[in-house]
């Protein structure tokens, strides 16, 4: 205690340490902080020739137009709906897989299955788009040619039929992420005190009962923290999943458009900077409030795991 106090008073020279940190500080200033001041673009009628500062102010016009469109509702609904599905289904699937892997016991099998389930996580969304194409494209796709034909069903033009896409996107998400998220839960299960299981065994609990009555209740803190972290990010979507997997198909926008794809399309395809900036700011601000809220909840439940 005493030592600590003395050390606290004897500060290191600031200059050299700041110098070491300077390149990183400069990067964050440019990459992360400078664009924060750019949010005023959302309040401008952006004109490429007049530039960032020369363009006329337009007050809340961009927002007024944005929220009048059907798009605003669609992208908000989709972003929230898919994230909610991912949190619920993804968590259940990851815990299920984690328990199975943990109970395998044999190291070689653990490694084998874990590798197989984790491999999809390492592929880029572009490659996953190709894999989706191998299954779904109308002419040479596996589903139309092999599966539907076997059932005698008419081929489906998947990239222009919105109906099945919520299911497809959830399946692709699970395929890519379940192995990855199960790692976290395996670590959490491994941290459970073994004597709890021994006690349950002495009481005659079967393996299944042990899982339901011991493992899952003891995973609760991890589940809650992981879910709240995800809820803090519920206004953000994985751009690749919603852009590459549906092959940027306009016919599917009703069920594949999220805030991130809208911002991209507004900026790069429609060149509507004002509208796009308004949507991006809408995402940043609501996202900010959600992170703060989620963190306040985590802190209440489990102070150690709070972000701040």
């Amino acid at each position: 205690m005493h030592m600590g106090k003395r050390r606290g008073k004897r500060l290191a020279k600031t200059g050299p340490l700041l110098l070491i940190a300077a390149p990183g500080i400069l990067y964050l200033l440019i990459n992360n902080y400078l664009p924060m001041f750019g949010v005023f673009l959302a309040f401008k009628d952006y004109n490429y020739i007049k530039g960032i500062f020369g363009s006329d102010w337009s007050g809340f016009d961009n927002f007024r137009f944005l929220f009048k469109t059907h798009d605003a509702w669609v992208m908000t609904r989709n972003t929230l709906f898919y994230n909610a599905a991912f949190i619920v289904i993804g968590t259940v699937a990851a815990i299920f897989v984690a328990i199975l892997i943990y109970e395998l016991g044999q190291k070689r099998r653990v490694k084998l299955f874990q590798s197989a389930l984790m491999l999809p996580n390492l592929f880029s969304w572009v490659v996953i788009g190709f894999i989706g194409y191998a299954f779904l494209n109308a002419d040479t796709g596996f589903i139309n040619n092999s599966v539907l034909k076997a059932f005698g069903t008419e081929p489906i033009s998947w990239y222009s039929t919105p109906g099945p896409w919520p299911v497809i996107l959830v399946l692709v998400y699970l395929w890519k992420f379940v192995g990855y998220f199960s790692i976290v839960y395996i670590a959490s299960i491994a941290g459970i005190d073994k004597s709890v299981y021994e006690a349950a065994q002495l009481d005659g609990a079967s393996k299944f009962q042990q899982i339901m009555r011991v493992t899952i209740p003891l995973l609760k803190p991890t589940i809650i923290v992981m879910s709240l972290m995800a809820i803090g990010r519920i206004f953000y979507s994985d751009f690749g999943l919603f852009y590459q997997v549906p092959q940027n198909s306009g016919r599917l926008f009703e069920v594949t458009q999220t805030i991130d794809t809208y911002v991209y399309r507004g900026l790069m395809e429609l060149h509507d900077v004002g509208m796009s900036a308004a949507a991006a700011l809408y995402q940043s601000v609501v996202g900010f409030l959600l992170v703060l809220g989620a963190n306040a909840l985590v802190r209440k439940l489990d102070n150690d795991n709070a972000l701040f």
Partner: protein
Amino acid sequence: MNHSHNDVKRFQVFATVVLAILAVFALLPIILIAIASVTDENVLVSTGYTFLPSKLSLDSYYYMVKQSQMIMRSYGVTISVTLLGTLGSVLLTTTLAYPLARPDFKYRNLLAFFVFFTMLFNGGVVSSYIMWTRVFSIKNTIWAMVVPNYLVTAFNVFLVRNYYVNSIPHALVESAQIDGAGELQIFFKIMLPLAIPTVATISLFTGILYWNDWVNGLYYISDSQLFGLQNLLIRIMNNIQFLKVSSNSALLGTQNVDLPGASVRMAMAMIGILPIMILFPFVQKYFIKGVVLGAIKG
């Protein structure tokens, strides 16, 4: 006792069976594109992509070797971007994390908040895009794929900082100071080499990130000479003829017959993931460690 032993065994069998089924489902899509890439083009046209094609052929790979100029160039771009990005990221991340770990650094808390705040709020894609293109004129340069977004993340900075705080005693710095070493010397000669285990972890994740990234390319690269592998793949998905048109400027149409489009598409996807599949068994252990480390406390 015997009863519960049986119970454990039974559950292990159940777990093995279920996981084997899941593992098959995880791998089938990859197997499908692997088989599709070596399926005869005529078979593909008549029966589509299938697991048991009636005729195999290496035409797609022959074709890619013949037209390899474009592919090799994109490989070169992706490898350069991955190396530059990973190296830059390691340097900027460790140098920023180290002062944050020093208990005697005056601005420690202020700087920690400065880094941390980037996790909470961001200016959005639009202003970031306009800044990089209009202020820094980064469009169609290799830096556009290296610099924006990924070089320093608060997450990695805190990962390295925590490693220093928890695993490397501050006394080491103090004794070096007594020996008369300057701060720069202490960092580069002592503290940076000591951080190698975490540096390995963040290099692995950052390397995979850069290898797989296509978003920066999508926003900032329109010149096909600068396409990395992922952006070449995107272009090929939209237009398979792109491979041929750009590698020799022969007339469109006259040579179309040569291009086994359906199988080449999948062969291209295969060469995009091959390096990762080869590397994966060797890095799997570190990958798992990194995920656990990151999840416990960022």
